[in-house]
């Protein structure tokens, strides 16, 4: 029987010495192509990486209005108007309720008490630095990063508070729609 079996399978010798393909444990991965892909992606990201003196990153939920603006960003004090707060250089100063100021915070000259106090503090610091260092000039620029849904009344309050403390050159941050 075994012989027949062996014969059927080509003989005893061939069964015993039948080559078995050992399972391969090594898998070669062609990572040269992967390196090419990564290099191309990196070059693209580097090219589109925005490097400027000032990086404006609106907070989550803040929608900037769109406009065909061409002016470039410059380093300046930044005020951000969102639904729940006004931030000056990233620090929350005034709490808002649905883009509106609290009535007790708004004075007769349309400025906000808390905001005016903060602008005054920043201004005094600028003046102090400019006095000590003749190379530093007092800057009247203010970048306004405001949500597009802000009512004009609230915007006026912010601008009035800034203007009363020497910030008269307003730069409105918008999303380019080119």
């Amino acid at each position, binding site marked *: 029987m075994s012989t027949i079996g062996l014969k059927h399978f080509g003989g005893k010798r061939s069964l015993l010495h039948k080559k078995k393909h050992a399972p391969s444990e090594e898998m070669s991965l062609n990572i040269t192509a992967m390196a090419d892909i990564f290099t191309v992606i990196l070059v693209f990201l580097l090219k589109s990486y*925005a490097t400027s003196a000032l990086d404006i990153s609106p907070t989550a939920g803040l929608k900037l209005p769109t406009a065909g603006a061409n002016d470039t960003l410059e380093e300046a004090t930044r005020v951000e108007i969102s639904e729940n707060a006004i931030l000056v250089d990233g620090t929350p100063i005034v709490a808002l309720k649905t883009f509106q100021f609290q009535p007790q915070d708004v004075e007769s000259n349309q400025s906000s008490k808390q905001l005016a106090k903060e602008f005054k503090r920043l201004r005094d610091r600028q003046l102090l630095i400019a006095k000590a260092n003749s190379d530093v000039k007092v800057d009247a620029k203010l970048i306004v990063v405001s949500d597009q849904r802000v009512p004009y009344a609230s915007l006026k309050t912010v601008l009035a508070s800034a203007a009363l403390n020497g910030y008269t050159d307003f730069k409105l941050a*918008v999303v380019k729609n080119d």
Partner: protein
Amino acid sequence: MGSVNLPGGDGGGQDFELNLAPIIDCLVVLITFMLASATFLSIGILDAGISAGGATTTATTPPSIVVTVELKKDFQMQLRVEGKETLTVPIGSSAPANAGASSQWNMPELVQKIRGLRQKYADFGALTIQGDNQLEYREFVTVMDSLRKEIPVVMLGGF
């Protein structure tokens, strides 16, 4: 792993292996950093000053005319001219571009009137926009953006 076989002077080859794994690691880290820090928004700047009481803040001599554009609710506008010429022109909203869309500011008519004033008065270079307190900021930006193409200085007023 890359392998290069360089011919030697006396016929012998020089093999060296380029280990791509650390390079891939660096590229992955760099790409992850760039993707995490990239902002795909292109942000621009609109220059705006404020006008208190309709007077220009930068002019040394008073201009011939002082022009104010007042934005009202329901996309109605009013063009006011004071000075050598006194004029108040209401500008109604324009028809919606698409069926079902809301009305919009009648910018073509406003721009036409501004152009007429510029042709008439050579020193007319600034105007003020003011509006209803409940109007949203984006409406002012829209009007400012259109007017900036016609006139160099556009200020916000109503203070």
